[in-house]
């Protein structure tokens, strides 16, 4: 066990109150330079020291050579959303170094390659020039390896400068590279060389440091896409069809790994699943619908552009009443827009995805744990309602690393919905019709191919209760009205919102998805800085349940926080609400491609409150 040399450091901090376990590190590198391992090691080491932490990768749509930033936030109170201000900067990218340094607030610290001479830029920052080449050259003679371990040198420097236990760093490193002993040894040497240089050459002049806490015991670190993949596996998915797209691909790719490991017979090699990389998103959703129609639990994962391509089929599934699950890992814009930046921009278009009268069911996971639970639950809901269920995650939730309590095993029996059993066939006899509302909940009984149950012919909207072709106006209206009834039934099936009514609060906040973490922090800021007490409702699904309206009725003003320009959820709420209540709604929007932060919410709400 290496010593954190804590006996030396406090004395070296010059005339500053230490800032313990509450700061943000930003590492600026070039993508493709292998910095991910180095960054994850810092993140994990802090996590292992019991300090709440989150890691966010801000990366370009590029394989190698463009700037990328990795932000690590440590916070003793457990705030893990993005923080606007950077306290500690590691400037490894010559292209952006000047701008990175110029954007820091006074008092921030900078570790940089001494060749960049960044210390000349500003006099109000703390600079630590590191001769990376010299240190790396002593570690290895291989030019290619030198490039790869360079990043590990800054880990060593940070271990000293931020009092991150070297032993924990080494533990984290061996978790990352444990299966590659040679690489592990080399990186360990670089880590130690970096630390040694820092100890011997730097006097600590900044206040930031990590101290052990006990706030992460038993927790896990995971990305939302991996969590969703686990949920799919334990939810019993059998057919997966997908097409690569950022930021969704890691979901099916992780799922493939899990399924090969846990859903394939070790001796026969036989699989209880089929996964197809389709030719495009249209084919992917077609396969999902075909499989769902034939009785499988089927899913695809995509992002906004994919959902757009799927929308014709989405309408068919709505009218033909076929179950299936679509994960939408939301991102900014079409084409070469900002495919690697986060947003909650598909809410409005997905709610009515497709042509004609359509209403779609959306689940809104607000944490990695909900990525897991909602993934598993989505199949039950899709089969119960015989419709597509959209799980609306986003890049921030899906691709970034989050702390979580470990996931609970799914032990609820699967709900396969209203599928005609032999007994039901006998009970209903000739009165069965594929689109007949026998139970009054708008959900008809379906039969599956390959079973003794009677067959039917599946089409779009032109069918009567018996699934016969019709263009009669009354048949069409009857069918549409039943589908609307089914959507009402959905309100009793989808996850209810999480509501926290603060006694006496006149102001409420409504948010959903990855905004939750920033809202939690912002509520504390509003209370502490503006003495504003707020209630909070976190939406977890569309259609809305009556709880949303009750919440709005209970408060004078309700701020709807979301990560898009057009106030999409705000508009959906207005469409559904008692018109007398709509004037109570306000909007807080964040849409610059970065994950939402608490300060932006606090500023917007404070400004709107004081402008009243």
């Amino acid at each position: 066990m290496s010593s954190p040399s804590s006996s030396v450091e406090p004395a070296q901090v010059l005339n500053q109150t230490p800032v313990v376990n509450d700061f943000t590190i930003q590492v600026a590198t070039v993508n493709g330079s292998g910095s991910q391992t180095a960054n994850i090691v810092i993140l994990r080491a802090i996590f292992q020291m019991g300090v709440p932490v989150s890691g966010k990768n801000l990366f370009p749509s590029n394989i190698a050579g463009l700037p990328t930033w990795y932000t690590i936030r440590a916070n003793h109170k457990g705030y893990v959303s993005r923080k606007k201000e950077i306290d500690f900067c590691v400037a490894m990218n010559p292209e952006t170094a000047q701008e990175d340094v110029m954007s820091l607030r006074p008092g921030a610290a900078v570790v940089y390659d001494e060749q960049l001479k960044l210390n000349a830029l500003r006099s109000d920052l703390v600079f630590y020039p590191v001769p990376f080449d010299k240190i790396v050259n002593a570690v290895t003679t291989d030019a290619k390896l030198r490039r790869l371990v360079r990043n590990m040198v800054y880990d060593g420097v940070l271990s000293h400068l931020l009092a991150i236990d070297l032993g924990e760093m080494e533990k984290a490193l061996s978790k990352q590279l444990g299966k590659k002993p040679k690489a592990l040894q080399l990186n360990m040497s670089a880590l130690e060389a970096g630390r040694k240089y820092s100890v011997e050459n730097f006097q600590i002049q900044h206040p930031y440091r990590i101290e052990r806490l006990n706030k992460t015991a038993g927790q896990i670190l995971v990305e939302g896409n991996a969590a969703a993949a686990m949920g799919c596996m334990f939810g019993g998915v059998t057919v997966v069809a997908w097409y690569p797209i950022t930021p969704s691909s890691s979901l099916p790719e992780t799922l493939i790994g899990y399924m090969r490991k846990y859903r394939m017979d070790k001796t026969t090699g036989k699989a209880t699943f089929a996964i197809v990389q389709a030719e495009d998103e249209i084919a992917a959703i077609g396969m999902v619908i075909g499989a769902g129609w034939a009785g499988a639990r089927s899913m695809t994962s995509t992002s906004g552009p994919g959902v757009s391509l799927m929308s014709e089929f989405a309408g068919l599934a709505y009218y033909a009443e076929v179950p299936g699950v679509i994960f939408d890992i939301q991102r900014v814009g079409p084409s070469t827009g900002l495919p690697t930046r986060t947003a909650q921009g598909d809410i409005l278009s997905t709610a009515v995805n497709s042509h004609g009268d359509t209403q779609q069911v959306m689940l809104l996971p607000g944490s990695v744990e909900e990525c897991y639970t909602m993934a598993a639950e989505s199949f039950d809901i899709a089969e119960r309602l015989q419709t597509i269920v959209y799980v609306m995650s986003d890049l921030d939730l899906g691709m970034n690393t989050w702390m979580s309590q470990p996931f609970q095993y799914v032990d609820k029996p699967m709900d396969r919905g209203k599928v005609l059993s032999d007994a039901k066939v006998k009970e209903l006899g000739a009165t069965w019709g594929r689109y007949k509302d026998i139970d009054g909940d708008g959900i008809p009984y379906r039969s599956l191919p390959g079973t003794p149950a009677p067959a039917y012919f599946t089409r779009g909207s032109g069918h009567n209760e018996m699934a016969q072709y019709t263009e009669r106006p009354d048949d069409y209206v009857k069918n549409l009205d039943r589908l609307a009834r089914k959507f009402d039934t959905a309100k009793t099936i989808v996850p209810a919102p999480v509501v926290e009514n603060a006694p006496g609060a006149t102001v409420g906040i409504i948010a959903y998805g990855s905004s939750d973490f920033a809202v939690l922090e912002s509520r504390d800021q509003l209370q502490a800085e503006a003495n504003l007490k707020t209630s909070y409702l976190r939406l977890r699904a569309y259609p809305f349940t009556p709880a949303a309206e009750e919440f709005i009725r209970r408060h004078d003003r309700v701020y709807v926080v979301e990560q898009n320009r057009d106030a999409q959820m705000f508009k959906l709420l207005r469409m559904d609400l008692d018109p007398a209540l709509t004037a109570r709604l306000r909007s807080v929007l964040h849409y610059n491609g970065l994950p939402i932060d608490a300060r932006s919410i606090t500023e917007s709400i404070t400004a709107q409150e004081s402008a009243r």
Partner: protein
Amino acid sequence: MSDATAPAPVPPKKVNRINLDVASYRGSKTTLCAGCGHNAITERIIDAFYEMGVDPKRVMKFSGIGCSSKSPAYFLNPSHGFNSVHGRMPSIATGALLANASMLGIGVSGDGDTGAIGIGQFVHLMRRNLPLIYIIEDNGCYGLTKGQFSPTADLGSKAKNGVVNDLPAIDTCALAIELGASFVARSFSGDKKQLQAILKAAIAHRGTCMIDVISPCVTFNDHEGSTKSYAYAKDHDDPVGDVQFVPFFEDISVDYEPGSTTAVTMHDGSHLYLRKVAEDYNPSDKMAAIRLLHESSSRGEFATGMIYIAPDQENFLDAMHMVEKPLAFLGEGETRPPKAVLDELMESLR
């Protein structure tokens, strides 16, 4: 009714090997135009499934959009059917067959549904060699939207309104062979015997059976100057040789001269006898098959018959290595890993 008199003897119903009469293979009444080639194809499908003794409850029917795509409603009423969206039937069929690989799939498409909007999914279906009978009811035009040219219309063919097609046709058979389909045939809706034999062989095959059937549109494309009219098809049909199919359950021995006929043993033990018209023609030679198609079309004719067959080529469903029981019917005991797996995953993330 009295028991005193015995009822008049009813002549025994003609049934197939699974005791079903041909009516069990029929569908709803057609709504296509009288004389439409598609209706003749429907009849051949009914006969082929009846004669092969396929249980209709073991069949799934698929289609896209167009006149052709309506036809699955006109055969095999006891089978589940899915009339999907334009050009995307292959993906629906792929998903359904993955969900239940024990079923027999038949898809009906048209020349627009396949060659235009659906060309992408067609290409990848052929590439995957998914076990599916894929029939193109090919009339070179869009019927439901009133006669526009489709991508299989020949260069120089004239539309009813006098417009001449100025683009070359896509040869769906050549494309299918090139892309990996393991059973490729072309026929004419008016050639009852040949089409019937091809369809029966297709039922016996495990892989993509791409069957392009020239099927004249009596309303929009049956006039002088059209290369997809009945008259033109009859005059330019260029059979590559007789197709004779003997299913595994029929004990028939066929006498043939080894030099003049190719015998193909199908996956289920059925036999396909293809009489050669050309000495060097080998239906399992891709290059020869593509050459034959090009030579025939350069003479202004269209080759019909069994163009290409690879009876043992690996198909998409086998390549998935799925458990025997259809995925659709797997319960949580089979698809939800035990808690120990979750514990292991959680431990790896600590």
